[in-house]
């Protein structure tokens, strides 16, 4: 009902949609980018795009997936503007982590140690539950690249998070 009203240009209905969906969108964006302020800025851009394009949404039930796609597209546009997806250099944080292998890190900090494209694939796979094919279609990355990003990213996260998990569980994991 709210989505239908928003599609017809009702601003209050759209504000209600923002209120209801903001948590999910912001959570996804914060996982993708380290900067909370930037994440919120990109979320607003995503909602703005949603407002401008919502009249073209045919199925109201598809709103959630559609909004997620817009959020990912907004992030991808941001990365493309800054050539973040093409960069092959390892992030500086990762090097810092390797110098201090025993340091406990939470998930967000560990995600920062991944390359942008790796982080994107990992978040879409683990957090959003998307299949490799869906990620490849969404990000326009080759399927093989997506698979290798997820394999390599998982291994890096496991290394980065081992100390963190140990500290949370109260001892080394068997």
């Amino acid at each position, binding site marked *: 009902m709210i989505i239908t009203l928003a599609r017809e240009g009702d*601003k209050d209905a759209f504000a209600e949609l*923002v209120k209801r969906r903001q948590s999910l969108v912001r*959570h996804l964006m*914060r996982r993708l980018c380290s900067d909370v302020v930037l994440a*919120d800025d990109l979320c607003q851009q995503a909602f*703005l795009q949603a407002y401008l394009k919502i009249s073209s949404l045919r199925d109201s039930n598809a709103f959630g997936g559609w909004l997620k796609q817009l959020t990912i597209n907004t992030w991808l546009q941001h990365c493309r503007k800054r050539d973040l997806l093409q960069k092959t250099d390892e992030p500086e944080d990762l090097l810092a982590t390797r110098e201090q292998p025993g340091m406990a890190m939470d*998930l967000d900090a560990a995600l920062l140690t991944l390359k942008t494209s790796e982080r994107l694939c990992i978040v879409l796979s683990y*957090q959003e539950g998307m299949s490799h094919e869906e990620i490849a279609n969404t990000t326009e990355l080759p399927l093989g690249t997506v698979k290798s990003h*997820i394999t390599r990213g998982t291994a890096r996260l496991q290394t980065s998070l081992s100390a963190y*998990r140990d500290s949370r569980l109260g001892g080394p994991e068997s």
Partner: protein
Amino acid sequence: MSDQHDISLQALFDEPAQIADDSEFVVRTMQRIDQRQRRSLYIWLAVSGGLIIIASLFALPLEIATFITQSFTTPLFSLGSGWLGWLMAPINNAGALVVLLIRLLRFARPKSSEWRVSLLSF
């Protein structure tokens, strides 16, 4: 989800989001939408205004061009609408007179230069 996942990593990702509902975020987002709409309106107004100015700037030269074209087709002598009028129409107008004058000037120019050459050689 058919792809294999690391279970312990998945457990970390599955932890509930700690982002509280933020009414300020909603307000800022809606303000941004309003700003965007206002900006679109201003751009539309600026483009419309620009088109009107361009049209008015081009209106005068177009009117002059139309006036000249109409003047050139005005008959020099009134020969009526009979066969003689139709026959003489291509040369019985101001345009034909202008063309004739230009041809005469171009015809006269070599002669004057020849005259100048002969005067210098003398």
